[in-house]
């Protein structure tokens, strides 16, 4: 259970929330541009500090902790991999930051790579991968961090429809196997419907209580009717 009760007032950033999220569930995060979706993820992952309130994960207060101590992994929109390092080293950095990689770590790396389907690409640099392979490698990196909350900040926005669907399926499968809580920011209602039973609407500087995805994305009467622009 992730219980959020906070507000943020900093320069032009304003955001408040009073919600709680189930573990082992996938939530879509939807809302107009500039409403605070990315800020919301930054607050959770610890890149932005809240002004007051609390973030409680399984009865443990995590606001104020550095990003690495929060049990949260995040996939950014871009720059998820270091371009000068091979896929293997990119993934290894999630496990160890020493040059030498232990045998235990090696087998972990291999299983994560096979889980996302990129075995055999160890020695490639990110620029030598296709868009889909890059996403998979980034996902493997996140899995190796072994956190139970996964934040996705539109990492698949640049992928084509069928590749994106594959990635969504993969996320769904992995979330289930690993019992993850997933929050996925998306601009595409179809993505939300495919993967998330519940949707968090972020608008007017407020993170709203999650509601059923179909209800949230109802194009004429739902809370996002303006944004989805059906007229």
């Amino acid at each position, binding site marked *: 259970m992730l219980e959020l009760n906070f507000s943020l007032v900093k320069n032009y950033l304003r955001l408040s929330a009073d919600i709680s999220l189930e573990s082992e569930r996938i939530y879509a995060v939807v809302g107009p541009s500039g409403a605070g979706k990315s800020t919301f993820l930054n607050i959770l992952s610890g890149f932005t500090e809240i002004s007051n309130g609390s973030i409680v994960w399984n009865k443990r207060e995590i606001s104020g902790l550095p990003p*690495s101590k929060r049990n949260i992994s995040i996939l950014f929109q871009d720059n998820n991999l*270091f371009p*000068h390092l091979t896929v293997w080293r990119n993934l290894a950095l999630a496990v160890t930051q020493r040059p030498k990689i232990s045998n235990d770590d090696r087998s972990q790396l291999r299983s994560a790579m096979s889980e996302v389907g990129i075995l055999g690409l160890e020695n490639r640099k990110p620029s030598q991968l296709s868009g889909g392979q890059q996403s998979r490698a980034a996902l493997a990196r996140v899995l190796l961090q072994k956190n139970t909350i996964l934040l996705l900040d539109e990492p698949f926005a640049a992928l084509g429809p069928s590749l994106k669907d594959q990635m969504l399926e993969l996320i769904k499968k992995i979330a289930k196997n690993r019992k993850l809580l997933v929050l996925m920011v998306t601009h595409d209602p179809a993505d939300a419907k495919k993967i998330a039973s519940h949707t968090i609407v972020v608008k007017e500087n407020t993170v709203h209580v999650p509601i059923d995805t179909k209800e949230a994305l109802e194009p004429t009467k739902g809370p996002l009717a303006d944004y989805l622009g059906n007229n």
Partner: protein
Amino acid sequence: MAQRTFSIIANTLLLFVVFGPLVVLLFYADQNLTFTTADWAALKFTLKQAALSSLLSVLLAWPLAVALSRRHFIGRRLLILTLSVPFILPVIVAVLGLLSIFGNSGLLNSLLSFFGFPVFSIYGLTGVLLAHIFFNIPLATRAFLLAIERRPAELERVADGLNLNFLMRFWILDWPILRLVAPQIFSLIFALCLTSFAVVLTLGGGPKATTLELAIYQAFRFELDFGRAAFLALIQLSVATLACCLSILVFGLPTNFNKGLDRPVYQRYLSIRSSVWDFSVIILLGLFLILPVISVISEGVQHFYLLENTIWTPILNSINLALCSAVISTILALGFMSKWGEVVGTLSVAVSPLIIGAGLFLMVRNYTNPFEITFWVTLTVNSIMGLPFSIRIMRPASDEIVSNFKNLANALSMGPFAWFYWVYIPRLKEALTYSMGLVAALSMGDLGVIVLFGGADFETLPLVIYQLMGAYRTEQAMASAVILVSISIGIFLIFDKIGKMRNARA
């Protein structure tokens, strides 16, 4: 945190080394200092030549950089490397080369008089400007090229897709880079020309073409008037400080170009008219930059037989000096990777190297024989002189690394050591080695502070050449110059090669 500590140490060190000598010199200062007419003339000439030099350099370098960035011809890579030559060329050698082309009995004047045109004189403002442009076009071109190549290739494709006309294309693609880079280059060249010494000494001089730097040298060397030298240095420092602060604070707006994933520059279809223009620019400026060098080398090579065995010690001294100052300057520069750092680092250019050297000389002379530590004084001054280059070369790359990868590194909970080892240094490698190569080459050919202190105990190769020229042994000087140039360029190329090598770590 570790980075912050290092930054504070580096800043303190610099301020101590730069301002310590000034304070010492002021201590020696005369109380009744006045601003004479000659000083006014020197100040005016200093500003005028610096402004014109930097303006012309930037204006000529931009079309050259654009042409080089969009033309892929055989020898392009070689040409870009060759364009580095004038800047790292020892000043005295370059002046010799320019004289052999533009001098009274040079190639150009021979041609002019052959066709019955009046001969022109290079001495004075013309010569100073020619030499300064010669030295600074390559610097500006390389900086522009780096910035253009850093621009995501996707942007050009978008512009092509929109079928933009010439003006819109310039506005969308080029102007953001120009606005970002040109003021920085302008202010750097301006500061360099403010303290330019050997050029003005050889091509300027006289009441009409004397700079503050030359006046400082004369006060120090001929009049032994340390107070007057310090007084002039303070004026120069104020002018340069003002100029640098203005240009960085007013123009130096940061624009963040997101780099893609190391894709090659996109080559697009270009009209014939633009081809003619591009290749004219490349050929004309190329000749201007290359001919003087070829002239010196062809003269020098013919007189190799005049070289003596005693030249080995100065050669080794110079190499030692060059490598040490390259490493010190580059490491020190890592402590100045901020806007404030860039301002402070640039200011060190404004302080005349002669003044720093002279101040250090006076500081230590109560404790030891200054002539025995000529190496250390020269090393210190050369490292400080290299610092602004190191900072300017590395800062854009450094900023980009931080803005692109700091979040990812935090998400991976990297400590400062892991960040340096895996991300910062490998991503910065090309800029890092470029900085080292450049500072090493500059230091190798430097003929500044060494003129004041160098003697029989410690000689560098440029000093030896200078002495040979003074003794009218021009052929021997030319031959030594060829050796000096080869080593300077050799060191530079080795570093460039290291920087371009693929990363071994995986």
